């Protein structure tokens, strides 16, 4: 009940901010369109990169939005006030997770629809799986955003966390250099970064008609990372502060 109210409240906040909605929905689609024109005439390269980006962009956007939203909750005093009410930490964390997860589903849905229909993206596997992995990755962005907001005192600082969290994952996820061609220590780092698994899962969907065991394992790793980030996020939410 409190969770439902919290989800509705967060979505209402979003609804009052049409510009943010537009950015959420349009930006990943525009970027994928950009990739389309960059790789015009090289459909293989476009398929590979656009597919990976369907995982990367939602993650990035949702990470940024969530960390700022949660930081505002912390700095505006509303978080402190909520902690004097019957709200539970999980109501808040799942409230943000579900509300922004829904926004992410719209975002991934639009981006995938445009990529498949207008830009001619082709994958051996189903588009539904692509969207599923894409949304899971967005939810991972939400969960990490909630966690990272605890380490920022200002929105300035929160924004700085984006390159810290996103860039290494993007560089090491196998998009620029295949993971099995990296130096051992880079591979080791890559192996503990969740985005490596979501990009691998998307690649699996691209290459195989049916869902593979590797893809399911990768998806479970990503969802496991979501749970770990949410649990750590809950630990950073303190009812009592100094």
């Amino acid at each position, binding site marked *: *009940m*409190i969770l439902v*109210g*919290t989800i*509705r*409240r967060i979505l*209402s*906040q979003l609804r*009052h*901010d049409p510009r943010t909605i537009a950015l959420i929905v349009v930006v990943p689609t525009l970027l994928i369109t950009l990739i389309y024109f960059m790789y015009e005439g090289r459909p293989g390269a476009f398929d590979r990169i656009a597919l990976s980006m369907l995982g990367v962009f939602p993650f990035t956007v949702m990470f940024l939005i969530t960390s700022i939203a949660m930081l505002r909750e912390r700095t*505006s*005093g*509303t978080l*402190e*006030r*909520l*902690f*004097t*009410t*019957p*709200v539970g930490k999980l109501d808040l964390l799942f409230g943000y997770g579900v509300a922004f997860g829904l926004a992410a589903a719209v975002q991934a849905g639009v981006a995938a629809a445009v990529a498949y229909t207008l830009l001619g993206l082709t994958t051996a596997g189903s588009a539904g799986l692509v969207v599923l992995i894409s949304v899971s990755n967005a939810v991972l962005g939400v969960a990490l955003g909630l966690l990272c907001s605890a380490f920022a005192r200002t929105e300035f600082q929160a924004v700085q966390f984006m390159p810290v969290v996103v860039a290494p994952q993007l560089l090491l996820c196998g998009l620029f250099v295949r993971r099995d061609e990296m130096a051992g220590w880079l591979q080791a780092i890559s192996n503990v970064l969740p985005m490596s698994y979501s990009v691998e899962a998307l690649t699996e969907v691209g290459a195989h008609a049916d869902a593979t065991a590797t893809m399911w394992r990768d998806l479970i790793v990503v969802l496991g990372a979501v749970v770990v980030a949410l649990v750590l996020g809950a630990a950073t939410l303190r*009812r*009592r*502060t*100094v």
Partner: protein
Amino acid sequence: MLDGFACAVLRGSVTGLLGPSGSGKTTLMRAIVGVQVVAAGTVTVLGHPAGSPRLRHKVGYVTQAPSVYADLTVRENARYFAGLYRLGASAADRAIETVGLTGHAGQLVANLSGGQRSRASLACAIVGRPEVLVLDEPTVGQDPLLRDELWAHFRRLAAEGATVLVSSHVMDEAGRCDRLLLVREGVLIADDTPAAVRAAAGTDDLDQAFLRLIRGRVAA
């Protein structure tokens, strides 16, 4: 922050917490609502340790800076907080009416004046009909007429059995309390009725009384 501080706030009364800014009023209030880390000592609210889960349905808190969602309307804010206490839209509308914001219910909090914002914040605290209402400077920046109405409302809540603790740094509000706690630099200087504080200091003016009590302490 608060040293050797012992006091009791009675049920069904309006208690004024007075003192200059930085004196520890907010720390005390945060300790009562259970969001302050208390290094030593005990704070008991309605027979339970402050901050215990069963108190969360019974305590309302208004922070000094209005803590409502600026990107929601007054009504959306009030309904969200009503929902936290498992109350519906009518409870939210009543609270909005109490703080005189019915005409602005559909407006975004971001577009309200400072005084209206703090009233929106107040509405979200009273919406759950708390047994203990802790208000940190709720009347700052309010129109005198409205301030009068708000105080009448606090008195009404107390008459209905609620415990109201209001902080202020303006002394003219002190006379409207049943009991006063005067705080300075974390030390409780007086804990008495306004009449008794006046008598002890030998002046009718509470501002002067506070001054004399402080001077008396410094001299002693």
